[in-house]
Structure formats: C-alpha cells, structure tokens
C-alpha cells in the first residue's frame, strides 16, 4: 500500500516550549517527520510556539507558524491553510490533546481534515485511564488493581482495595504531572486534592502500588497491514515507583529470559491491537514482579515519545521518520533501513549497551522535594554507548557534566550523615522555603557511621542514588543487602561491585601494566578516574596509554549487530580491537554539541550546532558532530556527515580529534555553538594541539577573565557596573561595602546564573557567599564576581557576528523585566519597544567595537543595562547565545549559519552580510517555568535562571506579540474580572497606572492595604483585601475560591518575599496568570488593551515565511 494520494497538504503540530516531560525529542521527531513528508512530495504546514527548534526553520517546510498552541489559534490556522490531514503523533501530549480538542469542537470535520497517524478512539483509549484499563482487560492483559475517582470521597473508597502505598495518577497530564505515591492515610486526602486539580478532567487513578517491581518499556511500530516490530527494549535500573523519565535506563533489557521477553512482546502487540493504533510508533510500559515474573501493563503512548527518541538513537532505527511514512499509507516492508539498505521491516538488534541517565536541577529550586517519584522532575538526559553495561554507565555518568568523571565516590563531596537526616516537612503551598544555609561541618565520620548513613540513604530514590549505591558497595554492603534496600536488580549491582573491585585493583597495583590498564579502560574508567586512583595526572595516564598503544576504537551503530555493512557513520568508542570509523580524506570540521539539557543550556545550542552543520555542508566541508544528548536533532545520524555519540570531556573529544585527523584535513574544532560545555574544553584542546575555529581561546579568556575584561573596557572607554572579584567571604564583604549595596554576586564560569544572587545587606552576602562557593566546586574555580547592581535598569541583549575585521548586528532585544531577573528568564522584545534611537545606536556601536577588539570570529552576545540613558556593559560571551534561534526566527536571518561560514574563513563581505534591516513586526520571547513540578518552590523571578523553555509571539505591535507569547506559555488572559495588585513601594506609581488601565478594561481592582491606599489616591476604586499574615479572609483565600483572575505581585528582599510566597504559589496552582515584575504587568496590560480595542475580533495568524517576506519587501 504505497503513498496516499488523497491528501496533499498535511498539518504537523509541534510540542511547544521545552518543559519537564517534553523536550527536544519532539523537535527531533517533528523535524524527522516533516523532512520525510516533504521528501515524499507533501506540502507540510507546521505549527509550534517554540522558536528554538529546528522544525520551525523557515527552510524546512512551506508554511511555518510560530504561534500559540491553543485551540483558537489552531482553528484559525486550519481555516487559513485548509490542510487535508493532521498528523498529531510527533508533537507529544500537547499535539495529541490539541488534536482531540479540534476533533471534539468539530473543527476537523468542518474543514474536512483527516486525522492520520492515530485515531480519536486510539488516543482516548490510551490516554483515558478508565478506557485503557478496560481495553487491557479485554485483551486479556493484567494491569494494577485500581479505580478512578472524581472526588476525594471516591478516592477513599478505592484505596480500601488497593491498600498503601497507593499511587495517584491524574488523567490527561504530561510527564506524570500531579502524580504521587501515598504511603499513609495521613497524606492521602491532600495529595488526592492536588492530583484532581492537575487533571484537566478532574479525575485521578488510585492504583495498587507495585513499587520495587522491575520496569520495562518496549518501543514498537505497527503499520496498517498489522505488521509489528519491536524497535528496542528498555530496562529501568530504578525499579517501579520512579517516573521512567527520571530513571536510569538500559537498552536492551538485561535481565529477561527469552520467554519473559516474548511475553512482553506478545503483550505489546495485543496492546497495539486493542488500543487500535493502526500506524506509527508507540511505547508500552510494563512492570514485572521479580519474585514470580507476573507482568502488568502500566501504560502506553500512541505516539512517538522521549523514549522513542532514545530508542532511535540507541539502535539507529529512525522511529519518527518511519512513523511519518506509515501515516501516509506505506507499510514497513515498503520502506528501507537507511543504515544497511535492507528492509525496515525487521527488529533492530544491538551488540552494545546503551545507558540513559537523567539530569536534574534541584540546586536551582531550593525548597523542592528532591525525592524521585511518579512525577517527572529531570530537565534533561545524557545517553552513552559502550560495549558493556558498566562501560556505558561510566560514560553516561561523565556525560552528565555534574562534575563526576565516572561512577565516582561522593564521600567528601556529600556528608552521608546529613543526607540520611530526615527532611523537615512544611506546608508546601503556604509556607515559604527556608533560607538556604551552608551545611554544618561535622567531625570526620567513622567507617561504621558511613556504612550506617549510606544504608539509610540508598533506600530513597534521588538524583544521585546510583552514586550512593556504589559508595554503599565501597563501604562493604553486599549485593544482596543493597538489592534488599533498593530493589535494584542484583545483576546491575554485581556489575557495580566488579567496578568497585577494579578500583581497588588499580589503586593497589604496583604498576599500570598493559593488561590492567586495558581491562580498566574496558570497564569505562576515564583517564581522570584512573589518575585519581593512581595519584597521578590525567596526562600521565594518557601518556601511559599512548606508550602501551591503548586507544579507543570506534564502532558503528548499525541496527543489526554487524550482520550487514553499515553505510552510516554513526559511531561510539570502546576499547575493542578494530576501528570502523573509516575516516575520510575530506576537508572536515568537528562540531562539539551541548550535552544534556539543563537549565541555561538546552535546545537553543543544539539549534546552533545543527545550523553550523547546515552551513558547512553548503560549503562542501564534511561535518563531524560530537554530542551525548539523545533528545536532539544534532544526534540524528541524518544531520551531520559523521556522528560520534560520546561524552563531551577532554579525553573523549581528543580521541575523536586524533581519529578524524588521521586522514583528510581536519580544519579544526568548533566550540562556540554548544554553549558552555565545549567552551570549557577550549583551552585544554588548544593545549593538546587541536586547532579551534573562530574566536581563539585567548579571546574567550579575555572576555571571561574579570581583570582582562576590565582592562579591555577601560581601553574602549565603555561603562560597566563597578565590579570586583573575591576568593573568600571577607574580601567579598569589603568589596560590597566599597561598591555599595545592592550588589550582584555570582560565580565565574557558570552558565544559567547558578549561584547568582542580589544582596541587599551584609547579612545576605555572608549567607550566600558560602553557598556560591559550594556551587563552584564542580568547576574547580572558586572565584566570586561581585558587581554593582543597577536597580530598575533596562536590560538589553545583542547578538552579533564578526569575521574579525567587521562585525554586524544580528538583533537587539530589550528585556521586559528589569535588570536583576536572569536574562534567560525574562521576556524580551525585538526590536526594542521603548529605547531611543540614540541609545540603540550606542549599544550597537559598542557591541561591534567589542567584537573587533576581542578579535571575535563568529558569534558574540553582549548584555547591556540601560539606566538614565547611560549604557553599561554587563557581560560579553564570545559564543552562540541562547537568543540566537529567537533572533534568527524573528529576523529571518540564520545567524549561526553565517557564523559557521565566517569561522572557516569566509568574510562577511564575501557572504554579503550587513546589519539586518529592522523588522516591520515585533517578536516577543517569553519564558516557561517548571514550578508546577516542584511543589514548595517560590516562583519569584531572580538572578538565578530557572526557566526550561521559551515561546515566541510575533505580531505587528509589541502588545499583541506579548499577548501571543503569554498565551503560548499557557496563560489564558481574561479581558475582565478581578485583578489583584500588591506591590513594593517603588512600584506604586506604576501600579496605579496599571490599576487605572485594567479598570478601564472592565476589571475590578483588589489590593492589599498599602497598594490599595496608593490606588485610591488616584481616584481609582479599589477593594481592600488582607495579606495572609493579617488573617482570613485574605488574598490566598480569594485566589483559591476563584475570585481573582490576574495577580500582580512585586516584592523587595527577604521577609517580604517570604510573606508573599503563598500568593504566588496559590496563583500557580490555580493556573491564574501572575506577574512578579512591574514591567511584565505593564506589558500584559497593554496586550489586554490591544485585544479589547482591536477592530477585527479573531486572532491573526501568519506564517514566519510571510513575516519575513513582508520585512524584505516582498
């Protein structure tokens, strides 16, 4: 059954901003799917609100809408584009839910849009837990004992049958949001209430606990001829009870006999049949009782997912691409396996082991519960490939970039006695988290204390648990004891034990002979790990390896365990005996990727890496990609010419450089596209004789080293906030007093503002300096930067490209929030909406001068602060910035591509690149936060970045664009209702303005005493409401009862922030739009006005291709 000809135009929905539970993997699947459909000759219309994606590149498909992913917008796009079909299975839960809404509202039938890839019935059956359970029973499959509750009373009834611990799973949420494990009746009602609130259908599944069972997942594909294949099996090291997205997982499954595996396969096939997934990829999750092999079906997703992206990278089988082709009529046997040229109708088999290890960001969310459970909390993941489990595991550990170069001991870094202490409990909604304090210092622990503490720690699933487990084995616990405490399968524990044994052998050996060193490398130990065990340096170990001829070889990921020749150079390293890299004679460039997603470094950098590849391909240069993030487009074997799926450490990258330089001409390595990760390697790589392309390591240092940077600014006579560096708390205090409070304190060489804070008094500084020092320990440089903090300044971001002789402006972005809110968290507007032409001109000329003076070749980002028309330079980053994709989408100019070409020697003149023309439209970037996933965390914005993703709103005016951006982050802004306003004194003037304008729109104004008095003075009527401390009925009561529709709440410093915590938290839980800075409140007021006073009622949608054409006068 070949290609369907009854459809020509297909609408593809993306997954929106990066959030916990939906990350780059949907850019990967969407891009793959879109490419496949375009190749087949279909006209593709794509919608996604996330500008940082490759899938929204204007070149990819005919029409790309960067618009909010809501029903109203989608309906408008469908009406405008009239697609024949909608493919909703590549855009995560967001796309599936939208497809359902569009079906239910009748939009699909009104415009005759066929749903392809998944039927409405299948989506419902898979997503609605009651229907799912019923389907499993029909199919003769077991699922956990459970029942559905729509109220607390019903839930109490059900828990009688399931017993404790019970699992709560709200219906129709992504990433398990609202899910919880309830251990005792005491906390049952509260957690049920929360779960019901999270579910859009106010429904929760109360389920028998199978905590401690083994967890498996099968990635499967079915086509319309009922052909069925298992692409990959995945086993979770963490047993049931930890969300699979937060589990360390292994592919293929390691601890199943064939009979057990086939039982899962048969069950998965029955699930696909019963749910009615006619075409496409799905995943099915199972729990298996380790005592008797009883199998339960846990859930399935009738779409591609995070784990299907992982399965694709793990096996080389492109699930999304195949799924897209199956959706338009093909059957599996009509498709080819790209890698081998044989049929795509087969099951990949692998002769290596893949480990996925999630990355967490708890350090950014003080007050969050760091225990892992059924609600996903990780923000990214690293994947690694090794010939054996332990090799892959150690590679994954060092791919995470959390300062660990393998499965190292955490003794010394963490005091297990403190970890074992019970966390204090508090009211997560009403009580602000405690002020962070440096940990107390305890006397050195005895061996027995360590053992007792470790034993107490490993029973709880946490981000670092596997490290603790290894330490437990080091402390002398047996495999059986650890198995008893953790329910982690003994097979994995035994592998860890062997690794620990090897550590001892290495440490005790007289010398590192060839056999010992080779064996150790084969267990995945890094040179730095070995160096620590041998008390020597990494260079010593490397030299010893060279001397003995022990070098990694590169094998290919080939889907078939070498049964066929692989034509795709997708590789991983191991210490085997034969390299299959087949290095070419071409001119080539190595591009280093960004590693696992984390807050501050995510999809934006992957976008830049991909664009570097595209640019070099246009120049006929071979591209070699190195990265370890399985979610990304950059690690698609289709993206670069050659792909190494490897950790981004000096050792691993150096080995690839040596391999690639062995033939052809290695022009150099690009470190400026992957964020801080590759940049950190630049000096060491250069020291090893590896040529860096573009901006030199010295220039990077000149921008990042405080003193050298100060000298540079003095030379150029540019202003910057007064600043200095300190290496201890006493110096810091002296400097702060000299500069004058408030001061901004932050560690050097840290991305995303980790450990960054504004201090208003000595006390703040003393408290925070200790913590900041702690945050820097991982990077090994304990230098604290102390800057004068410019209150109420406007921040501006500028992206430039320079060829070393001439620099051009890519885009100037004005932040909505004032300086002090991390640039990655604030909304920004391009072009600037309130700056004067003169200020903009000064900013642009300073940015250019900086680029030239630094000798930047490639991209550079500068952050400015503007106060009283004075321009100050805050920071210069001679690399790709987080804003590059946004600028590129807003202006239609592919900045990263231009930069990559410049870096291999093209001049801007040759490329014909000048300062871009100023857009005739306005683009607004807004940030998305993961606060709902972290109960108990304050949502107040500050200098520490905490957003996970971004959206873009684009329109002819700033207010409308801002309104779109706010809609895209999921706030629905009513045009009337009750607005609550409570602001700090310095904001009262503006707050009165906002109150007046909101009232004119038809809002009733509610305020706390101080703010209300100020508003009433301006003769705007205003209701008064109690602060929480003033007693009920107070503002939180009003929020909880649904009496408030918008919250504006600004605060200043310590106690005031703590007092107002529950207002922000309650607004978050009630999903009420809330604004914690005055500029954001002003902006949203303007966008409300724009909506209310707009002449044409409906939402205007326009594709980016049209916006760009309009800008260029077409």
């Amino acid at each position, binding site marked *: 059954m070949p290609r369907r000809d009854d459809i020509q135009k297909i609408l593809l929905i993306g997954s929106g901003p990066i959030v916990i539970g939906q990350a780059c993997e949907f850019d990967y699947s969407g891009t793959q799917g879109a490419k496949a459909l375009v190749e087949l000759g279909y006209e593709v219309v794509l919608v996604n609100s996330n500008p940082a994606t490759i899938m929204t590149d204007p070149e990819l498909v005919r029409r790309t809408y960067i618009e909010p992913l809501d029903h109203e917008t989608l309906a408008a796009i469908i009406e405008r584009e009239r697609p024949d079909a909608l493919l909703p299975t590549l855009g995560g839960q967001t796309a599936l839910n939208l497809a359902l809404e569009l079906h239910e509202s009748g939009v699909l039938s009104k415009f005759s849009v066929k749903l392809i890839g998944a039927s409405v019935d299948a989506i419902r059956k898979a997503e609605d837990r009651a229907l799912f359970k019923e389907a499993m029973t029909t199919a003769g499959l077991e699922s956990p004992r459970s029942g559905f509750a729509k109220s607390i009373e019903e839930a109490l009834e059900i828990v009688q049958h399931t017993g404790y611990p019970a699992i709560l799973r709200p219906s129709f949420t992504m990433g398990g949001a609202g899910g919880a494990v309830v251990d005792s009746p005491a906390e049952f009602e509260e957690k049920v209430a929360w779960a019901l609130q999270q579910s859009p259908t106010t429904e929760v599944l109360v389920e028998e606990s199978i905590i401690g069972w083994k967890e498996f997942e099968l990635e499967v594909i079915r086509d319309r001829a009922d052909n069925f294949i298992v692409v990959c099996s995945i086993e979770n090291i963490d047993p049931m009870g930890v969300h699979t997205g937060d589990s360390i997982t292994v592919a293929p499954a390691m601890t199943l006999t064939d009979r057990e595996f086939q039982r899962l396969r048969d069950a998965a096939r029955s699930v696909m049949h019963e749910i009615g997934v006619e075409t496409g990829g799905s995943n099915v999750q199972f729990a298996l009782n380790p005592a008797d092999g009883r199998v339960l079906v846990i859930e399935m997703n009738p779409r591609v997912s995070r784990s299907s992206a992982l399965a694709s990278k793990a096996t080389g089988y492109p699930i999304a691409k195949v799924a897209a082709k199956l959706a338009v009529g093909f059957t599996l*046997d009509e498709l080819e396996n790209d890698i081998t040229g044989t049929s795509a109708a087969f099951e990949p088999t692998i002769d290596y082991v893949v480990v996925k290890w999630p990355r967490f960001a708890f350090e950014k969310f003080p007050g969050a519960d760091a225990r892992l459970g059924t609600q996903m909390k990780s923000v990214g993941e690293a994947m690694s490939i090794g010939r054996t489990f332990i090799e892959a595991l150690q590679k994954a550990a060092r791919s995470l970039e959390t300062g660990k170069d393998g499965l190292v001991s955490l003794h010394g870094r963490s005091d297990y006695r403190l970890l074992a202490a019970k966390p204090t409990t508090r009211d997560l909604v009403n009580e602000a988290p405690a002020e962070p304090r440096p940990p107390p210092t305890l006397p050195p622990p005895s061996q027995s204390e360590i053992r007792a503490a470790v034993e107490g720690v490993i029973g709880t699933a946490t981000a670092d648990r596997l490290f603790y487990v290894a330490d437990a084995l080091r402390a002398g616990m047996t495999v059986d004891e650890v198995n008893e405490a953790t329910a982690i399968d003994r097979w994995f524990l035994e592998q860890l034990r062997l690794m620990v044994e090897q550590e001892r052998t290495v440490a005790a050996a007289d010398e590192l002979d060839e056999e010992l060193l080779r064996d150790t490398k084969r267990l995945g130990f890094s040179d730095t790990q070995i160096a620590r065990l041998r008390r020597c340096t990494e260079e010593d170990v490397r030299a010893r390896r060279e001397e003995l001829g022990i070098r990694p070889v590169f094998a290919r990921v080939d889907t078939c365990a070498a049964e066929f020749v692989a034509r795709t150079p997708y590789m991983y390293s191991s210490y085997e005996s034969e390299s299959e890299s087949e290095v070419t004679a071409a001119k080539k460039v190595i591009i280093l990727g960004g590693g696992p997603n984390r807050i501050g470094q995510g999809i934006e950098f992957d976008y830049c890496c991909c664009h570097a590849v595209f640019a070099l391909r246009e120049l006929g240069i071979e591209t070699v990609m190195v990265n370890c993030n399985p979610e990304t487009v950059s690690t698609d074997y289709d993206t670069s010419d050659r792909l190494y799926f490897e950790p981004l450490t000096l050792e691993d990258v150096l080995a690839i450089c040596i391999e690639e330089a062995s033939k052809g001409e290695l022009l150099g390595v690009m470190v400026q596209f992957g964020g801080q990760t590759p940049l950190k390697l630049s000096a060491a790589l250069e020291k090893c004789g590896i040529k860096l392309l573009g901006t030199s390591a010295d220039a990077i240092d000149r921008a990042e080293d405080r003193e050298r940077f100060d000298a540079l600014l003095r030379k150029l006579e540019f202003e910057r906030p007064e600043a200095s560096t300190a290496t201890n708390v006493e110096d810091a205090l002296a400097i702060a007093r000299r500069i004058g409070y408030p001061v901004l304190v932050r560690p050097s060489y840290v991305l995303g503002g980790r450990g960054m804070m504004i201090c208003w008094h000595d006390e703040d500084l003393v408290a925070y300096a200790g913590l900041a020092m702690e945050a820097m320990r991982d990077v090994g440089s304990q230098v604290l930067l102390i800057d004068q903090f410019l209150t109420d300044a406007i921040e501006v971001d500028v992206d430039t490209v320079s060829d070393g002789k001439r620099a051009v402006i890519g885009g100037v972005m004005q932040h909505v929030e004032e300086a002090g809110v991390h640039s990655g968290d604030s909304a920004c507007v391009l072009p600037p909406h309130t700056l004067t032409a003169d200020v903009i001109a000064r900013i642009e000329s300073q940015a250019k001068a900086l680029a030239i003076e630094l000798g930047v070749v490639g991209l550079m980002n500068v952050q400015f602060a503007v106060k009283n028309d004075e321009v100050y330079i805050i920071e210069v980053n001679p690399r790709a910035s987080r804003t590059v994709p946004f600028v590129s989408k807003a202006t239609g100019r592919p900045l990263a591509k231009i930069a990559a070409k410049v870096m291999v020697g093209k001049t801007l003149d040759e490329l014909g690149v000048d300062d871009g023309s100023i857009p005739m439209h306005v683009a607004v970037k807004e940030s998305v936060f993961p606060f709902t996933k972290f109960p108990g965390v304050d949502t107040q914005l500050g200098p520490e970045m905490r957003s996970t993703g971004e959206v873009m709103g684009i329109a002819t005016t700033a207010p409308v664009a801002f309104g779109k951006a706010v809609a895209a982050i999921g706030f629905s802004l009513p045009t009337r209702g009750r607005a609550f306003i409570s602001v700090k004194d310095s904001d009262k003037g503006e707050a009165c303005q906002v109150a007046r304008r909101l009232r004119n729109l038809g809002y009733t104004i509610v305020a706390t005493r101080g703010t209300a008095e100020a508003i009433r003075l301006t003769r705007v009527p205003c209701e008064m409401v109690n602060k929480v401390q003033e007693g009920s009925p107070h503002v939180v009561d009003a929020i909880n009862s649904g009496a408030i529709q918008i919250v504006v709440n600004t605060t200043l410093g310590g106690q005031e922030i703590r007092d107002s915590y529950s207002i922000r938290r309650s607004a978050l839980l009630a999903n009420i739009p809330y604004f914690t800075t005055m500029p954001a409140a002003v902006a949203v007021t303007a966008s409300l006005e724009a909506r209310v006073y707009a002449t044409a009622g409906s939402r205007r949608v326009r594709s980016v291709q049209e916006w760009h054409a309009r800008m260029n006068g077409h």
Partner: protein
Amino acid sequence: MTATRKARLALADGTVFEGRAWGADGHTTGEVVFTTGMTGYQEVLTDPSYHGQIVTMTAPHIGNTGVNDADPESLDGKPHVAGYVVRDPSPIPSSWRSQQTLEAHLAEHGIVGIGGIDTRRLTRHLRDHGSQNGCIGTEEASDLVDRARAAPDMNGLDLVARVTPTSAYEFEESRGDWAVPFKPHDPPRAKRPRRHIAVLDFGVKRHILRCLVDAGCRITGLPASTPAKKILELEPDGVFLSNGPGDPAAVQYAVATIRDLLGKKPIFGICLGHQLLAQALGAKTHKLKFGHRGLNQPVKDLATGRIEITTQNHGFVVDVESISGQARTTHLHLNDGTSEGLEAPDAGAFSVQYHPEAAAGPHDSLYLFERFLDAVDESAGH
C-alpha cells in the same frame, strides 16, 4: 571463576582472537558462526541445529539470567554447541527462574567457551569472509589454527546422524504456562480431534513438539533413517519433518523417505525439514556465506503480504529458482530474497525455513501449526 586464564579462538584462515577461558577446560573445534539474538542464549546452547558449531553471541552480556531446566531446546536438556564465544560472561545470574550459573552449566556439560573477546570484530570477519572452522583453546595460536584447519568441512557432513534418536519415542509435554494462542486475535476455535503425528527427528527442538502437542497432536518421534514404509505402518495423520544440523545434501536417505511419503500424508517441515522437502520436490540447496542466525529475520508471506519477524538458524538454503514443478514458493526473506517457505498443494506438503515455534524469538508465525493441523484434519476427513 577460571576466567583469568588466557584463551584464544583461531579461525582456519589464520585469524586469531584473544580472550579468556570460560566454561569447560580443554579445546574444541567446529564451524564458527554468529547469532544476533539478544535473548535466549540457553535455547541457542541446547538447539540441536547448532550441533558441532562454535557459536558466537553478538549480544555482549550472556548468562545474566542463569540456566533453568525449562528453557533447553534439546530433548535431554543438554547443550549441543561445540564451543561458545561471548564478550562478557555474567558473573552472577539474576532471575526468579535461574537454577544454575551458565558457567557451571557449561563446565558440567564439557562445553569449552571463551569470554572477553571482541565478538564484533569476529562477527564482522565472519560476515566478510564467511563462516569457517575454528578452534578454541589455551594453546599457542599456531596450534589452534592447525586444529581449525584439520577439522572436517561442514559441506557434505551428516551431522543429523549424531543427533537423531536411536529409537522411536513419545512426547507429551505442552507449553504449559507459557502457551500463547497460535492466532492471537482470532476467536478461539472448537477443539480438534486428537491427531497422530509422526515426527522425523533430525534433531528436533523441544518447543516444536510442545507446539504440536498444544495443537492437539499425539506424537511419535522417529529416527531420521526410518523408512517411509515403517512410518506409514504407524498410520499417522500427518508427518512432521524437523529441524536439524548440517548440510541437507548429506541426508539423502531422508530425502528418499520424504519422496515416498509425498501425497500420502500431509507433511510439514521446518528448517532442515524445509530443505529436505524441497530436495524431495526436486529443488536444490546451497550454503550461504554466513547464514541467517537470529531472532529478527523478516519474512514475507506471499499469500497475505504480511511480514513475520522470525527466528532463524541455518547455514544452508534452498535455491528459490530451483523450486518448480508441483512446488511453489510461499515465503521469502525480505532482506536477501532467499527461500523461506514452499508448498506442494497436490502433495499436501508445506514447509518453512524459519522457526515458527520461536524459542527463542517472536511468536509471529505460530499460525503455521494451525495450518498444518487444518491440512491434517482435512486429509483425515476424506
């Protein structure tokens, strides 16, 4: 563990792989082949079709679930491989079903193994240069190469004689708790009358017999050399031709038997049984470069167009072009177009090259057992 002793695998072409001794002491020779299945090592070890072969597992971790007495595929539960090659033998078993470690099992049955070797390089070598004889041992490399060269050639070798039973037997074991429907999504069918099936046992896999039992058969297993006349005297309702090791051309006596049975009883063959039936119908066989061994082999059913993911284990194959006369091709390998199934409707015979009983492997092709019993029922009804 004896795993610290160095051992080598030498191939007849002189290539040598270093590893560590594992399993039984000593040395062993045989044809070196690889199988790509990621599960089912115990089934592989005990599959009589691997008799005399040194089997390489491409999956790196082997032994993880230990050994139990339910999974063996040989009727006596013993391993059949001549030698066993793995990348990383598991130090401990972890499975609720495990009764023994794999290493102890190998040692107990005298199976010489080698661990820690670069199985990927070996697999690529066999893929590029073809399956060939080899020798595992702890001796000098040159000695091992000599032994490999001295080992008998697989072509023309009658390995069936070594694994076929010496006398007739009955078999009554079912799949028990592990049974799955032959056609999962069809409504359950009425119980069939019990049928008597004569199994020509060339080294039959236990799970084939279990499937036949579950399909409603009374089984009489017979030595490979049983003549047609004797088989017919048993008055079976159908004849099953089993899998088995080695070169089908070396088992001409069985081809003659099958020829005599054609048209007299419904016949179903699997693997070697397919090759022998094909020869009886006038087709030819030849040796593949490195065979098909694994659990992921795609086969197309030409009648329905559907794809089955199948278990395969064969070094020889039927020439598709030579299938003619009353025989016709029913199934083809999707990757290389080789013969996977044929039928001779007039003679009431059909066969497949792959293993519908799986064990190890996917259950996509169990329907063939029902097809066989349908033919038997129909024939019995006349």
